């Protein structure tokens, strides 16, 4: 694994800015990987052994994902929306899993660890660099029950919604009176009042690689999905 500074530099560039959350995330990932004994998580032979659950969608999550190389599309990055500054690192080969939690007291201790730095953000950033892992984190050894349908690899199962016909992958359907139902057709969905619409330039497709892309018209107002 690269040095902390190199990882932080890359991670903050990828994220868009350097902030205390990035420092915590890079260190969280370094500790998590150390605990599950993966020293080069982004290397080809190790990347397939690793699953990471992040419990927040904050700067820290991006840093954890960057350092470990886990990706949503590879199914190696799992987002569970707990609103907790924590991530769980799972080694699929050994079955070992550790949940690393960022301590709340670290925020209060920033003034003790970086009293020479003025400004809340800068002080946190420097203090989180200086604190030992034991101050910055708590660690739990956990068991993670990974269903085959949660693992990386090809789709293992498809169902068809009994109400709208939508194909649902990897057992994400609900069963209502024994029949599969997709989330949008259930009560448990993040949007509502969906109605299908048309949109401008519906016939657009990417140009062939050798053709220059024709100028696009100014986008007109449209609503793919209405949100209320």
């Amino acid at each position, binding site marked *: 694994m690269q040095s902390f500074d190199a990882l932080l530099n890359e991670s903050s560039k990828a994220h868009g800015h350097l902030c205390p959350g990035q420092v915590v995330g890079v260190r969280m990932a370094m500790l998590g990987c150390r605990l599950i004994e993966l020293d080069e998580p982004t290397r080809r032979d190790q990347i397939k052994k690793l699953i990471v659950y992040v419990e927040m969608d904050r700067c820290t999550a991006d840093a954890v994902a960057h350092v470990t190389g886990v990706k949503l599309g590879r199914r190696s990055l799992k987002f569970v929306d707990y609103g907790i500054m924590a991530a769980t690192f799972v080694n699929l080969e050994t079955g070992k899993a550790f949940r690393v939690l960022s301590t709340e*007291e670290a925020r209060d*201790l920033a003034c*003790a660890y970086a009293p020479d730095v003025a400004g809340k953000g800068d002080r946190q950033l420097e203090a989180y660099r200086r604190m030992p892992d*034991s101050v910055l984190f708590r660690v739990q050894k956990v068991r993670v029950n990974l269903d085959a349908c949660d693992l990386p690899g090809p789709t293992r199962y498809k169902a068809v919604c009994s109400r709208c016909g939508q194909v649902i992958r990897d057992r994400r359907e609900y069963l209502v009176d024994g029949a599969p139902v997709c989330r949008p057709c259930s009560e448990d969905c993040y949007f509502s009042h969906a109605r299908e619409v048309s949109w401008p330039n519906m016939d657009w497709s990417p140009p062939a690689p050798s053709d220059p892309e024709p100028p696009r018209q100014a986008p007109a107002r449209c609503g793919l999905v209405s949100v209320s």
Partner: protein
Amino acid sequence: MTAEREVAVLKKIDVKDAVGTRLAHDITEIRPGEFKGPAFTKGHEVCSEDICRLQKLGKNHLYLIDLEEDEIHENQAASILAAALAGEGIAWENQPKEGKIGLHAAFDGLLKVDAAALAAFNMVDEVMCATLHSHTLVKKGELVAATRAIPLVMKRAPVERAAAVAAQNGGAVRVAALKKVRAGIVVTGSEVFNGLIEDKFAPILSAKIADLGSQVAGVSLAPDNETRIAEAIADHLDNGCDLLILSGGMSVDPDDVTRKAIRKAGAQEVHYGAAALPGAMFLTAYIGDTPLLGVPACGLHHRTTVLDLILPRILAGERIGKKELAFIGHGGLCRDCAECSYPHCPFGKGM
């Protein structure tokens, strides 16, 4: 530290039913103004004669203890915590009293507390450690800190995390022995050099140096002349002095040239100005690794000044720079009491 936690493994029994059981913890007796200590110690087998005394101590119920695998007793926790907190120069005995272990100075020296690590330690649930202020001069055997686990029984993991926090950088509490140095004193000022007035600085500085166990190798007088002061500095260095103290000439008058002389003598690192009163015009400088301290005139008429804060730290091997001189600001204001009680006062103890 934390709020009280329910511990499932503790079973409460009526004291009248306790005969034959062993106490899970020390039971403290307090006789106001007379005695405070354990009336019964952990492990004591309760006999029928004890019941009345226990009731007089307000104990109508006792705990029976049954530890889970991941739990430890307060005494064991205190031992783990003490071992982690204790850095160099700390002596402690593994004999917890009422769950507490005291950390003592193993020799005379300067107490050094890692305040950040201590704060982090105390932020861990269910443990505590209290210390004297960092940079306090302590004597061999003196109690400098004490630690305990707060509940009778606690989980092992937070104790071990607290121990890891305490053990960073070799232990949060340590005592640094003071080096015995040969100090050279340069008293500056043409009025002294020319005999117009008698020097009062050298005896005061010599006494402070001797009080800290070092010796004065030589005192030289120099007029308000950069070259002459620089030559006096060079003479002391040639004479093998490993600490130089210069008095006077630290102010802003045209005759105050001590700072320039220190640079002329070869100081690469000069920090002028300290966040302490008295002592704002204090100076630290280094020629190689040899520290030079510039003491302003306040050192003549105030019993305690910034010199009393910095000199022990220099002798304890600390390199004093801008940060150290700035950080003494919190608590760096002497109250100028009619009767000085330093070091038993807040002066210089904000850090």
